């Protein structure tokens, strides 16, 4: 089970869960007064089998396939996508060295292990059993992946080292946070309801990973379920906003290269501290519909004041059913209040016993 107890709020999760398979009752054979659910949302073996078949079907459907076009001639990427290309980790386990790809059997075994671990719940530590809300990734069409890591560059599949400047900067930020102690600004952007899922870019994984792409002449719009973040991407070649205008979601500009949407995003605010990056971060994303139900998603991040080299990922996002629901997160964010109260109590207990409490932080 991943550590996800910091996700905001039962209220939000319940609303979101309507969008997922587990909430869709199939009334055939249902005894009166009960609901039965799609097996792939309740039974890990059924889900693993379906995911394996879906991955193979997607690969077959991608052969000799050309994406549709909008009436005005752009490649048509519109639809709803699950921002979770499998349980493939961002970084390759060190034990795998330079092995970039699994065999099909190895990929399925790794997927099976990941699904079963995710579905396992230890009642002594769990806050929510996410699968009861239909929020485990295996309940929503995620598939096995031959890649051993999402990162494909550097070739070892791991994040490049931080620059000395970045190490110093991040240590100072952490020291300041420890000295200040926990308050509502301690947790990440997601718990504070400032941005969802920490991006852009999208790091596949996590909860509330549904998203929508919508196109009109001259624009692509990306709407995320998480926090309802919306990115408006003009395609008309206009210049970026001046460097003095920084934003949480950056400033995106797009164009098509063949059937690939290329999105270049700059003007990020340093306040978001995304994986330690600064306002110098430069992001290039590539979105390609490679099959009727599969969006290939690649990105390259460059920030010379943070990483010693650029790094890139390659992943696939499966299509899912509509829609995207309202994600009113900051509105009455009781979860944030409860988190801060609880953490301050733990800090006081630690101080009384002579220990130093490390403020709990989100894993993102």
């Amino acid at each position, binding site marked *: 089970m991943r550590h996800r107890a910091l996700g905001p709020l039962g209220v939000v999760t319940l609303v979101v869960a309507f969008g997922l398979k587990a909430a869709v009752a199939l009334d055939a054979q249902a005894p009166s007064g009960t609901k039965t659910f799609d097996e792939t949302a309740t039974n890990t073996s059924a889900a693993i089998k379906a995911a394996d078949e879906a991955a193979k079907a997607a690969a077959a459907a991608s052969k000799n396939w050309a994406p549709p076009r909008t009436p005005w001639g752009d490649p048509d990427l519109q639809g709803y996508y699950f921002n979770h290309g499998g349980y493939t980790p961002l970084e390759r386990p060190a034990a795998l060295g330079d092995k970039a790809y699994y065999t099909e059997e190895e990929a399925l075994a790794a997927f099976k292990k990941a699904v079963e671990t995710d579905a396992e719940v230890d009642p002594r530590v769990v806050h929510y059993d996410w699968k009861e809300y239909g929020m485990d990734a295996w309940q929503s069409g995620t598939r096995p992946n031959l890649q051993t890591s999402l990162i494909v560059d550097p070739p070892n599949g791991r994040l490049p080292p931080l620059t000395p400047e970045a190490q110093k900067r991040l240590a100072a930020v952490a020291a300041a946070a420890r000295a200040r102690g926990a308050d509502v600004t301690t947790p990440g952007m997601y718990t*504070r309801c400032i941005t969802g899922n920490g991006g852009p870019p999208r790091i596949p994984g996590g909860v509330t990973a549904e998203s929508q792409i919508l196109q009109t002449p001259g624009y692509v719009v990306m709407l995320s379920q998480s926090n309802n973040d919306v990115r408006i991407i*003009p395609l008309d070649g206009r210049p970026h906003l001046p460097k003095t205008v920084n934003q949480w979601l950056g400033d995106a500009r797009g164009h098509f290269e063949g059937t690939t949407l290329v999105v270049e995003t700059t003007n990020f605010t340093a306040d978001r501290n995304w994986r330690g990056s600064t306002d110098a971060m430069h992001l290039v994303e590539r979105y390609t519909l490679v099959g009727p139900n599969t969006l290939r998603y690649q990105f390259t991040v460059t920030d010379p004041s943070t990483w010693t080299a650029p790094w890139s990922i390659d992943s696939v996002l499966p299509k899912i059913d509509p829609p995207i629901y*309202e994600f009113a997160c900051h509105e009455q964010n009781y979860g944030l209040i409860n988190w801060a109260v609880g953490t301050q109590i733990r800090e006081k207990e630690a101080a009384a016993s002579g220990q130093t409490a490390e403020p709990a932080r989100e894993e993102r």
Partner: protein
Amino acid sequence: MHCPLKSATASAAVAMVGLWLAVVPTAGQAPPGGRFPPYTPLRTVDGKPDLNGIWQSFTTANWDILAHAAQPGPHPEIMGAWGAAPGGQSIVEGNEIPYQPWAAAKQKENFEKRMVVKVTNDPHRYDTGEPELQCYRPGVPRANYMPFPFQIFQTPEQILIVYEFKGAVRTIYMNSKEEAPSDTWMGWSKGRWEGDTLVVDVTGFDGHTWFDRAGNFHSEALHVVERYTPVSPYHLQYEATIEDPKVFTRPWKMSFPIYRRVEPNAQLVEFNCVPFVEEMMYTPLGLYKPRGK
């Protein structure tokens, strides 16, 4: 055809530039009575009026949807003219909101306590204070008359509106029969075309939003029917019928024009106000520590 120029001073101009004036008002001269000459809107690829673009209304209704004089802000000792509210005219038909007696009293109480922000962690109690002050989603129709632009993305099946304020979004499902799956801040919008007018039926509200900073409010029974009519390449005429049998004695209407933002490379600039309100909302709970301490 209605001619916008009938005054004696304008007749010389009519003679000089001829027919062009029959359809386009001269710069600096509003069409009489706010009416525009007949206009056939540009079309989208599916033949519907094209509402795509960045739009903004220019009223003072966000302070008060009824007619109001200018007034000092709540903290003139530090905010001076910055905090003051401009005077303005009513967007409400007849300048009257038909409140039930209890609701008229509640509106006054809302106004008195608009800055008493009390955030609790008790889900059975509503938080107090003006929702905009706390960076909450503004709801409908208010989102359309806040002093921020919004952008319309129109497809045959759905129309997405992105509001600069808080980045609030709403999807209008076209010709949909689906009912609201749960209550929300921005409501559940179903659209259809009546001639060249986009008609949007909005339900499924949660009752937490207000119409303005003056405390005008509604309940979760709110039902809004909006009408967006293109009246020139640069203007939409907006009308909303407001119905809420728990709060009002009858349905009532508001209307105002919405203007196209025509600056080169116009775009929405983020207004993510969540970090702007954390200090105000959580300091009283001891959960916000001033920076630098």
